[in-house]
């Protein structure tokens, strides 16, 4: 198992290198100059050139890349042009609210989606099934910012049950932390929930057609445990894949929701950095999210092995 994890981590390095080159090129090809943004519209060409030189932006692009990537390998993502602080530090500060939001959204999505998917599969073809799937389609179609605004309007403004916006760190207490997170998490998790519900339903239906379900039924297994014991665990693999793939989009998708709810997360950091043409931060964040994706995929692969003995890695 350990050697497998090591192998996976090593194989991630080329992926990261490619990503780093692509992101570096894209950023440097897009129009806009950090020096002129920092100095404002009044700045003279001489001032801009001077700042460019001090930031290293006047060097040939491959030199800029190599000096950056050399730092990355030492854990130094560079220094923000604008905030004058190390990029790692700004990411570390903004990632906490985003991760908190993403995990909470994921939990809500799973809590809603899995029972709905299982129920719909069990009652396939019935009115309950179709109405749940229509509901899921609705959840997938509604843009998260719209849902966010509607939720704020209802629970924040009309009913006054929950705060309208803002963020409280976990250190202020779990309850208050969640109170501020619940609306953003629902708006972020809705699409996720819809996706997982549909996947759960179709995955279970597929498994229900398998021979081993028929033989379990012939054994006298009751319908309830037929679905929960025999079908669900087998159906979990595709569901897990969807969860793994979309958890990453939760983090990137948080950009919109963070803006609506004014949460100081990674989304806001990215948006602000793009406006300021703060190349170092953008590169750092993208690279960081790539690492996160790779890490998530690794976890999903390890979970596969726990669910399905056929993909177990360390047996004999």
């Amino acid at each position, binding site marked *: 198992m350990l050697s497998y994890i090591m192998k996976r981590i090593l194989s991630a390095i080329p992926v990261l290198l490619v990503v780093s080159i692509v992101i570096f090129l894209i950023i440097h090809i897009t129009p806009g100059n950090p020096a002129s943004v920092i100095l404002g519209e009044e700045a003279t060409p001489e001032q801009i050139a001077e700042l460019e030189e001090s930031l290293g932006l006047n060097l040939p692009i491959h030199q800029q890349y190599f000096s950056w990537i050399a730092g990355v390998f030492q854990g130094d993502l560079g220094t923000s042009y604008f905030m004058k602080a190390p990029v790692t530090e700004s990411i570390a500060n903004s990632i906490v609210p985003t991760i908190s939001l993403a995990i909470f959204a994921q939990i809500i999505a799973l809590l809603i989606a899995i029972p709905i998917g299982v129920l719909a599969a069990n009652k396939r073809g019935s009115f309950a099934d179709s109405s749940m799937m229509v509901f899921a389609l609705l959840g997938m179609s509604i843009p998260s910012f719209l849902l966010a605004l509607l939720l704020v309007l209802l629970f924040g403004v009309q009913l006054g049950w929950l705060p309208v916006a803002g963020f409280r760190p976990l250190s202020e207490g779990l309850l208050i932390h969640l109170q501020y997170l619940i609306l953003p998490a629902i708006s972020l998790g809705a699409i996720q929930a819809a996706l997982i519900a549909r996947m759960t339903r179709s995955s279970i239906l597929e498994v229900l057609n398998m021979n*081993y379900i*028929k033989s379990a*039924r012939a*054994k*006298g*297994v009751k319908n309830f445990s037929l679905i929960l014991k025999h079908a669900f665990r087998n159906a979990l693999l595709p569901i897990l894949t969807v969860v793994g793939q979309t958890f990453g989009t939760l983090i990137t998708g948080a950009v919109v929701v963070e803006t609506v709810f004014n949460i100081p997360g990674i989304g806001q950091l990215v948006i602000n950095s793009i406006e300021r043409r703060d190349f170092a931060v953008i590169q750092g964040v993208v690279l960081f999210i790539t690492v996160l994706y790779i890490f998530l995929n690794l976890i999903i692969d390890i979970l596969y092995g726990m669910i399905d003995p*056929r993909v177990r890695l360390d047996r004999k």
Partner: protein
Amino acid sequence: MQNETLLEVSNLKTHFGSDTGFVTAVDGISFHVEEGEILGVVGESGCGKSVTAESILRLHDEKFNTMYEGEIKYKGENLLKLPLSKMENIRGNEISMIFQDPMSSLNPVYTIGNQITEALLLHQDISKKEAHNKAIELLELVGIPSPEKRITEYPHELSGGMQQRVMIAIGLACQPSLLIADEPTTALDVTIQAQILDIMLRLNKELKMGVIFITHDLGVVAEICDRVAVMYLGQIVEEARTIDLFEQPLHPYTSGLLESIPKMDGDRSKKLNVVKGSVPSLDSIPQGCRFASRCPFADELCLKEMPELRPFKDEEGSKVRCWHAEKILNERKKEHVSTD
């Protein structure tokens, strides 16, 4: 000694809903199985053997797209009228079933021990520990070496023959009175096939268990079955004691099947007889006799009217669904005399 009738199926029909309406996969089947008896059910693929077997346990989802008609009396009780919860008590306990493809019939994510003890725990009031010990005994019974070790393994770690033994162990876990074996040896190679048949035959004798053995292998039928029902397109076309069926097939379809078996002492230069054509699809069932389109003896009557399954007078216990059974038999006898 007269054995008790274990299962009596009368006029069973199984309809499946599809996009184009209902199709009737099993159309008015009647047969019975006695205690300790092995009944063979033979026929080509797609003629409704498996559906018949699965209908006995009502494995097709009635809430979804299936409709049963007729009567399936097990020990005097009509299974089709039982509530589902009662049915669940019968499945795997009173009547169990072994399926065609062992590789896909075991749940891949649970150990075989788990799957055997599940059957025990469902139907018997015993502790997990006892169930575990019993599972080991069962594995021993079906001839799996070092069962204590095997019991913790997953299906994919076993060979096909071993998997089918596990299926049999599950089927026999609660000592059922009736075992339905749906082509249990089709997916296995010949030596394993013989071993599996041997186990089933032994248990049939020891436990006086009734067996419905579904197969398209007439060789296997000759070897183990007491009686045979031949199915064609959802109906039984002939039913007879095995010995009678092989000596004197009554239905042209049965003789066709028998003639299509290659013989060791046969003439190599002669072409093997086959039943011409193929089984028509269920949504284009011919009027009249269902076999007429492939039958060398068919006449107008056959094309127009469907014969009933009727007792054949010369042969006790034999039944045939053919207008011309007597005529065909006489002709064949004459032929034999003239060639001899």
